[in-house]
Each structure stands twice: as structure tokens, then as C-alpha cells.
């Protein structure tokens, strides 16, 4: 039986960021990681998803620099080490654009929102 929800997946994710942690879901049936947050597992159809806290370490899967009148900025797809992929931005003091394969870590101070979440490179490319 699939019970009623007291709180939405989006709210749990947002509360995690506000508290300084990057949360994702893992399926209790097939064991695979799930992102973006939802009510059921897209891999196996189970409704048994449990929240976990990500170490925030990952690898750039693809990346683009968006040229904008108000300044260039990065958008990247990051493959997290726990086995899920998310879109975010890579922003740091290292010279040059992020590249596919760069190792990155999430920057999640308390008070983070989806809009302020970013990643930074952990080694020189």
C-alpha cells in the first residue's frame, strides 16, 4: 500500500539544502540512486524511496558556457559518485572553462537554495 505524503519530495530536498546538505533518494527495492526527487523509482517502479545525504563529489559529464549580456556563466551535468546525475553550475577561481571529466564538489553552505547551489573543481584541469 502506498501511503499519503506528509511532505513533498521538493520540500525535503529544499530543507536539505537550507541545512547545508545535498540530498538525493535511493530506491529500497532496486538500490539505485534517483534524482530529481520524486515519489517513485523510475528504474523499477517501486514507491519505496529513502533519502540519503550526498558527499557532493562528482565528475563533469558535460558542460556549456552560456554567453549572456550580463556575463558568461557555466551550466553542467554532474555525475555524482553515488550514481545520480544532476544539472548545476560550476563556479570557482580556477582559470579556464570547466571540462568534461573534471572532478567537482558541491558547495552547500547553510542557507543554500536550488538557485545558489554550485559546484567547484577540486583539482586543476
Amino acid at each position: 500500500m502506498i501511503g499519503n505524503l506528509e511532505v513533498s519530495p521538493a520540500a525535503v530536498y529544499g530543507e536539505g539544502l537550507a541545512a547545508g546538505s545535498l540530498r538525493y533518494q535511493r530506491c529500497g527495492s532496486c538500490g539505485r540512486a534517483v534524482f530529481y526527487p520524486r515519489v517513485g523509482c523510475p528504474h523499477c517502479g517501486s514507491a519505496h524511496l529513502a533519502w540519503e545525504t550526498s558527499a557532493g563529489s562528482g565528475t563533469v559529464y558535460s558542460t556549456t558556457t552560456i554567453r549572456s549580456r550580463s556575463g558568461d556563466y557555466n551550466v553542467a551535468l554532474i555525475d555524482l559518485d553515488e550514481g545520480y546525475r544532476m544539472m548545476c553550475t560550476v563556479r570557482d577561481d580556477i582559470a579556464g572553462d570547466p571540462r568534461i571529466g573534471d572532478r567537482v564538489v558541491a558547495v552547500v553552505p547553510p542557507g543554500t537554495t536550488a538557485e545558489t547551489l554550485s559546484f567547484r573543481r577540486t583539482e586543476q584541469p
Partner: protein
Amino acid sequence: MSDPSRGVISIVGAAESDLGRVADGLTSLDLAGQAALRAADDAGIGIHEVDGIFCATSHYAMSGLELAEYLGIRPRYSDSNNLGGASFVSHLLHAIAAIRAGLCTTALIAYGSTQLSDGGKLVTASAPNLYESAYRPRYPVSMYALAAARHMHEFGTTREQLASVAVAAREWARLTPGAFSTEPLTIVDVLASRMVSDPLTVADCCLVTDGGGAIIVTTTERARDLRQPLIPVLGVGEAHWHRSISQMPSLTTTAALDSGVRAFAMAGLDVADVDVVELYDAFTINVPLFLEDLGFCAKGEGGAFVSEGRIAPGGTLPVNTNGGGLSYAHPGMYGIFLLVEAVRQLRGGTGARQVAGAEVALVQANGAVLSAQATALLGSAGTL
């Protein structure tokens, strides 16, 4: 034994509305309606003979309701399935099912958009994925840029190779009356164009124009009595694996892999049978991706395949023979125009851009961010 859906319906009418920049005040519905009436004229039937309506637009959430009312059609079969630019080839598949089941006999598939007159902004009734929109990707170009960057990383595809797609499209457009962009274009020009979202420049991106298109299909049995050369629908397939780019399993393999296999299986054909190809070239990267996934070349070899004029006029595989979304027209959801150009090539008589002796055309329509794929194989009467 051939597939029971193979060739049971045929395209009997195909037309475009006014294209490019249309008269002030025209609406998307006006353009869809105008294209529909021209398609009925082309078929030599009255629009009220249509009893099945298939319509998707960006402007109207209930597109089928809008267009049927506008044209005074009271359909007994109505399908407003919206797969973005793949909608209309998907509609073709659904029309086969509906007509085979006897749920309608004569189906209109139509589209219209005033995207250029509206200021170029992509109108969409589609809610954003909040886990992506927070990072301000420029929709949809940044999503295709991510795919292009990954293809370059995995296979060594170059910006020059992608640019050759835009150059080939322009060469075709220069042979096509009414094409939107016809100034000469070189690879150097593309590389020097303004970067929008690396590695894609503005010249790697489709046009923004106004326009509508429509086709009319009916049973092949009835089509034989109508005025146009028979264009049987030999095979259609559709597939989608994701909506948001972050959910695409691999950025270098699209669901055209599945839609293509399904269409070829229904048609009982192989890539070697295809004479002319119309692919949805929203961005230059689409063309190598689809040629790979459809089996025209091996995965990863698309960049080399599209180079050196192979897909340009005079090349061995004619692709996007009107100049495509890159140079001919691109009013938001281009898929219907692929069908119209394929029909024109198969009927013959398109002038300087005519592919001599074209008997089989492949159409690959793409929706959203490489999300929905629909493949159609159309033939001449001799292919039945």
C-alpha cells in the same frame, strides 16, 4: 509477410501556410488553418471531408479543439498529442491506427506558429524542470550544446564538422524558392559567428520564422482515386526516453535508435533503400546524431559522415533538401515541414533541388530536447 500497417494509408495533400515573416495580426491558428485549406486544395477534396483531426501547437493547449472549430470540422477522431516538433510524425503513426481501426477515414495533421512575429521568444505551455531552470540554461540551445560537447568529447567530433551541416543546409536553401536564409555561408563563417552556448554558435542554431504546415492522409485505396501521385506511408515509429536533458540516459544516443528500427521494420526497408532524408535540424549536432542512430553510419562517425559535402547538393546522401530548419524555415515545431518536403521530393518536379528518381524518403522528427523521436518512411507508388 509484410506488416499489416505498411502502406495502408497515403498522403494525398501537403502544403505550407505563408512562411517567413507573415502579415501583422495573423495568429498561429490562422496559419494552421491556411495550411489545412491549401492541403485540401492540393488533395482536391473539401476540408469538410476530414473526419479525423491531429494538431499540436505551442500556442494552444487544446489545439485540436481550436483548429476543428476554426475550420468548421466536427471530427469523430481527435488527437492533440504534443511531442514538440516530433508531434506530426507521431500523428502519422496514430492516424494509421485510427484509419485501420475504421475510427476515421480522412485525417488532417496541421500546425501553425507566429514565433517570429511574436518577437522570437519560444512560446511554451510546458512547465520547466525546477531542478534545471535554477541554473538558467538557455532553453533549448544549452541542452543541445551539452549533447554536442559530449559528442565532441567521446568521438572527437569537431566544430568544423558541425559547421559543415549548416553549410550543406545553406547550399540546399539556395536552390529552394522561398527559403528564409540564402546568403552564401562557409565553414569559416559558422566558426566566426557569435557563440551562444559553447560549442554552438548562432549559425549552428535553427532559424526563427513564422509559418504553418498541413498534410492530409486517407486510405491508400481511396488515395488512388485522388488527383496527386500516390505517396504511401510505408512505415512509422515513435519513441521517447526522457523529457529533461539531465534525464537523458546518454547524451550521444537518442530514441531515434528505437523509432528508426520500428519504422524500418514496418516498411520492410533498410537504410540502403533510402533516397532522400529529411531530419529535424534544430541544431547542427542533430544531424550526425540521427544519422548514427538511424544506421546511416556507425555511432561516433557522424561528424566525419556529414563532412566534405556528402549531405550537400551533389553529395551521396541528400539531407534536408529544402535547407531545413537551419536555412529554410523554423516556426517553433518544424516536424510538419519535414513531411511536406519529403512529399514534394517524392512527387518530383521541385526544380534545382530535386533528388533524381527519389522513391523512398526518410523523415526524422525530433521533439523538445532530443526527447521525442518519430521516424517515417514514405514512398512512391512503385514501393507498395
